[in-house]
C-alpha cells in the first residue's frame, strides 16, 4: 500500500475478513500463513481495482515501462531518513514488476518471510519462489538502471 492510511485501512479489512471467516480456517497451515494469504489477496484485489480506475493514467506507464522521474511523496516510518528517497524509488520500481514477482519480493524483503513461508502463503513450490525472487531482482536492476541513466 502506498501510504499509512491505505495500509491501516487494508489491515482493518484483513482483520474483519479473518474475524468473519475464522470458521473456514481448517488448520492445515499456520494461522499466520492463512492471514498472510488473506492479506496478499486483499492487497492484490485493491491494486487491481486501482489499476482499473487509473487505466488512463496508467497507459503512460505501459507505454514506457520505466519508472517516471517523478517520485511520489513517500515516508515509511520504518526506514532510515537517509534511505527514504532511495526506498521511494525502489517501491516505485517494485510496482512495475509482474504481480507474482511483486508479492514474492515484498514478502521476502519487507515482511522478512523465509522462502518456505512464502511458498506456503503463495501456494507454490520453494524452487518457484526462488526463481520468482531471482527474476524480481533482475528486473529491478534493469528498471533502476534505465531510471538512473535517464536522470
Amino acid at each position: 500500500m502506498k501510504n499509512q492510511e491505505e495500509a491501516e485501512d487494508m489491515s482493518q479489512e484483513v482483520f474483519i475478513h479473518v474475524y468473519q471467516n475464522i470458521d473456514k480456517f481448517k488448520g492445515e497451515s499456520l494461522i499466520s500463513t492463512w492471514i498472510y494469504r488473506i492479506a496478499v489477496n486483499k492487497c492484490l484485489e485493491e491494486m487491481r481495482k486501482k489499476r482499473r480506475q487509473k487505466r488512463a493514467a496508467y497507459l503512460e506507464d505501459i507505454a514506457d515501462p520505466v519508472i517516471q522521474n517523478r517520485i511520489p511523496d513517500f515516508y515509511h516510518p520504518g526506514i532510515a531518513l537517509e534511505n527514504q528517497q532511495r526506498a521511494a524509488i525502489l517501491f516505485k520500481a517494485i510496482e512495475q514488476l509482474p504481480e507474482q514477482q511483486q508479492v514474492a519480493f515484498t514478502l521476502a524483503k519487507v515482511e522478512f518471510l523465509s522462502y518456505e513461508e512464502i511458498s506456503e502463503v503463495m501456494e507454490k513450490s520453494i524452487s518457484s519462489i526462488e526463481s520468482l525472487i531471482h527474476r524480481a531482482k533482475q528486473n529491478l536492476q534493469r528498471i533502476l538502471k534505465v531510471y538512473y541513466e535517464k536522470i
Partner: protein
Amino acid sequence: MKKSNLNKEIDLTLSSIDNLKKANAPDDFLESLSNKMIFRKEQKIWVRRAKYAIAAMIMFAIVNTVLLINSKSSERQEMLKSVASEWNLKADGY
C-alpha cells in the same frame, strides 16, 4: 551518471529497505476497527432485510400468477361445461 556510480546507486537503492522496521499500529487502530465492524454489521442487517423483502415480493408474484392461471382455467372449464350441456355434447366433444 558514470557506470561505477550507476551500479553503486542501484545497489544502494536495492538495499535501502534492508533494515526496514515494521511500523506499529496507531493508537486509535482498535477503536476505528471496532467502529468499522459495527457499521458493517448494521449495513449487513439492512442488506439482509432488503433480500428478504425482494424474496417475499418474488414469492407473492409467483403465487399471484399461479392463482390467476388456475382461476382462468377453472373459469374456462365452467364455460365449456355449460356450452356442452346446452348443446348436449358428450365429454369427448362429439
